């Protein structure tokens, strides 16, 4: 597993800062601590005197920036800061009173020192009201800390089995990668087909089923003649990776799924995301029952959770005293609202709408920014603050504590129509990248940003899980809320394929970029590239259905 590069760089200190540190170490920072004042919004300032405002010792001015000298505590304004260094040799380092930032008066520039940031954060943790697990909210690094819910999956589990299941595959001669096979529409089932194609090509899930981790032979549920969705899925994987290229009908899976999810069992158009969650739930249920685990998905080791489960962090902060209450919730995917900040609102007298719908152009990164943005809860939503012992205005902020191996991002393409009091679909175009770095959305980054981006080991920094992802499947939708069509695009060895029920075709990446995405599946970069190599060496299914025909295109 590759270690993530440190999330921040440690800038090289200027000569003046180095000289100051050599002579005074951190003693100046420590004596400043008593004058540091933390605000509920996470920012720090220097409060020199309880009642009097600070003034420049040269001009007695109080406007603009003021800097307090770290050595002699004299205050200078930005005009006279240099003068102070000239009069007192060696008094180069000062602190910006308003923002508690280090300032080198000789260089006339803001400078950075991890020890300074550490002492600021230490004061924060003292100042801000805390719950019993306050250290977690900010999270100074604790080496022995028990990780929440199954951090970092051991990848070695998914290595190819060393023994007999592994046969050099002659189908490697065909010019198309394994696992490309159309799925017949059984009657309004393209919602199911589109999600199946994505699951069929999720590397860890695919490896699990193709290495017979769950098969009909070994499954106890089957012999007890009970319904088992993982068994049916295994059947689909075997069929699709068998080498046969005539379209496959996932009828057995449909039958089993309808028995599992009775409330969704009907001949009608349905939502792909609902199906996705339902299938994962079906896998989870069967696997946990088999091992007598509790239903708690936090530590669940079923394949669905091991692959898709992440952990979301929610911070609710009292805007009066700064007390923050933190909760963690597991999630199988992340549902995002569309970011409409890039929309250009044309006036009333505009031309008819363009072919692509509205002139909104949002990006996936914008949606993720929106998801992790602090949200001021309305004054009708005051929450009880444990510290103030009252209902207070609060703000809430989401972040990602633990990323899953496969990240499914679901776009909520629906909104209430104010006019007609119904839900309607949002057709706006959403840009999504093929490579995605999730670092800015991690809890450590979000919390760091809240406290002014101090150089400090925030909770989660110590994680070694990579944050770089590559997209491998996009489920797209066209049409309306009630009636439409799903198509999945798969990215295999950097070639895109369109999977439209029974039809598999090669497409240019531009087609995919221009499509209307609904669910995007990203996998850790290392797993993506490993999967591309593995495709030529996949174990052949031991089932009788394995065909050895070659795709006759070259």
């Amino acid at each position, binding site marked *: 597993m590759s270690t993530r590069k440190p999330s921040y*760089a440690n800038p090289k200190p200027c000569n003046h800062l180095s000289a100051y540190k050599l002579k005074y170490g951190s003693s100046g920072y420590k004596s400043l601590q008593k004058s540091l004042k933390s605000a509920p919004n996470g920012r720090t300032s220097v409060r020199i005197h309880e009642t009097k405002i600070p003034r420049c010792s040269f001009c007695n001015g109080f406007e603009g920036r003021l800097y307090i000298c770290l050595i002699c505590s004299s205050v200078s304004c930005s005009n006279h800061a240099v003068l102070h260094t000239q009069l007192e040799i060696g008094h180069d380092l000062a602190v910006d009173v308003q923002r508690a930032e280090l300032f080198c008066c000789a260089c006339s520039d803001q400078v950075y020192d991890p020890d300074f940031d550490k002492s600021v954060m230490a004061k924060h943790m003292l100042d801000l009201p805390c719950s019993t697990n306050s250290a977690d909210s900010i999270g100074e690094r604790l080496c022995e800390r028990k990780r929440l819910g199954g951090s970092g999956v051991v990848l070695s589990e998914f290595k190819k089995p060393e023994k007999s299941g592994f046969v050099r595959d002659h189908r490697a001669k065909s010019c198309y990668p394994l696992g490309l096979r159309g799925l017949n529409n059984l009657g*309004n089932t393209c*919602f199911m087909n*589109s999600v199946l194609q994505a699951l069929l090509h999720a590397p860890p899930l695919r490896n699990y089923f193709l290495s017979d981790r769950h098969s009909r032979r070994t499954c106890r549920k089957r012999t007890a003649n009970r319904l088992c969705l993982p068994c049916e899925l295994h059947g689909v994987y075997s069929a699709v990776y068998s080498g046969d290229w005539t379209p496959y009908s996932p009828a057995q899976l449909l039958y089993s799924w309808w028995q599992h999810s009775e409330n969704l*069992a009907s001949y009608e158009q349905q939502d792909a995301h609902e199906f996705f969650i339902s299938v994962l739930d079906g896998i989870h249920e069967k696997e946990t029952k088999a091992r007598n685990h509790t239903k708690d998905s936090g530590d669940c080791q079923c394949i669905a959770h091991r692959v898709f489960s992440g952990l979301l962090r929610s911070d609710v902060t009292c805007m009066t005293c700064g007390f923050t209450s933190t909760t963690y919730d597991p999630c199988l995917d992340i549902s995002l609202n569309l970011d409409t900040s890039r929309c250009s609102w044309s006036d009333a007298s505009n031309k008819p709408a363009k072919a*692509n719908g509205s002139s909104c152009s949002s990006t996936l990164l914008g949606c993720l920014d929106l998801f992790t943005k602090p949200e001021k809860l309305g004054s009708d939503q005051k929450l009880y603050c444990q510290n103030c012992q009252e209902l207070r205005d609060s703000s809430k902020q989401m972040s990602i504590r633990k990323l899953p191996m496969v990240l499914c991002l679901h776009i909520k393409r629906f909104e209430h129509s104010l006019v007609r009091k119904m839900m309607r679909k949002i057709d706006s175009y959403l840009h999504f*990248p093929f490579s995605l770095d999730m670092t800015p959305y991690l809890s450590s980054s979000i919390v760091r940003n809240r406290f002014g*981006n101090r150089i400090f080991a925030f909770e989660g920094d110590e994680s070694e899980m990579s944050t770089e992802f590559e997209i491998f499947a996009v489920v797209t939708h066209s049409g309306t809320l009630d009636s439409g069509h799903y198509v999945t695009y798969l990215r295999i060895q950097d070639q895109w394929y369109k999977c439209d029920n029974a039809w598999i075709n090669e497409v240019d990446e531009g087609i995919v970029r*221009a499509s209307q995405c609904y669910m995007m599946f990203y996998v850790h970069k290392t797993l993506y590239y490993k999967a591309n190599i593995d495709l030529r060496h996949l174990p052949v299914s031991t089932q009788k259905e394995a065909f050895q025909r070659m795709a006759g295109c070259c």
Partner: protein
Amino acid sequence: MSLPNEENAMSSSPDAQLSSHVFGDLLDSIIVDVASECHRIAKLGLDRNFEEEEEELRLSAQARVRVADPSNSGEANGKYVVDIFGQNHPSVASEVFECMNCGRSIVAGRFAPHLEKCMGKGRKARLKVTRSSTAAQTRNSRGNPASTYSAYSNSNSTNRLSNGASAVAGEEYSNGALEEP
């Protein structure tokens, strides 16, 4: 700092001078605040790669233009003659197999409507299913009360996008109405 419409008033009113002075001070303070924050983000390497993002947006804009161009229709809009294996497929899947519930031979493209009746999940049967027993099946709470999975008409409910059959022959499948023989 002075605002244009205050230029005339400036010389006369000390209040106007004072307020525009205070405003100027506040504005300067905010600007330096942002500058200091951005300076830190840049120095610590926390900023995003904007060049990469701009390039991505450019690629997407180009792609959308190409797709929208009518002279590029055909493959761009999914009208294929054959798939990558050289096959052609009818709009209604024609494979025939045995229904695992009743044993009859069914055409793939009509399997779902058949199965619905076969399992007793037709519209009349559905009305008898109680919601409480099935609501518990939903583990992942998404916080939206409207998202209970209704098997009924979806004209005013739930946050989901429905699908149809293949784009080529959408009229083959109706939306939920089942008058199958």
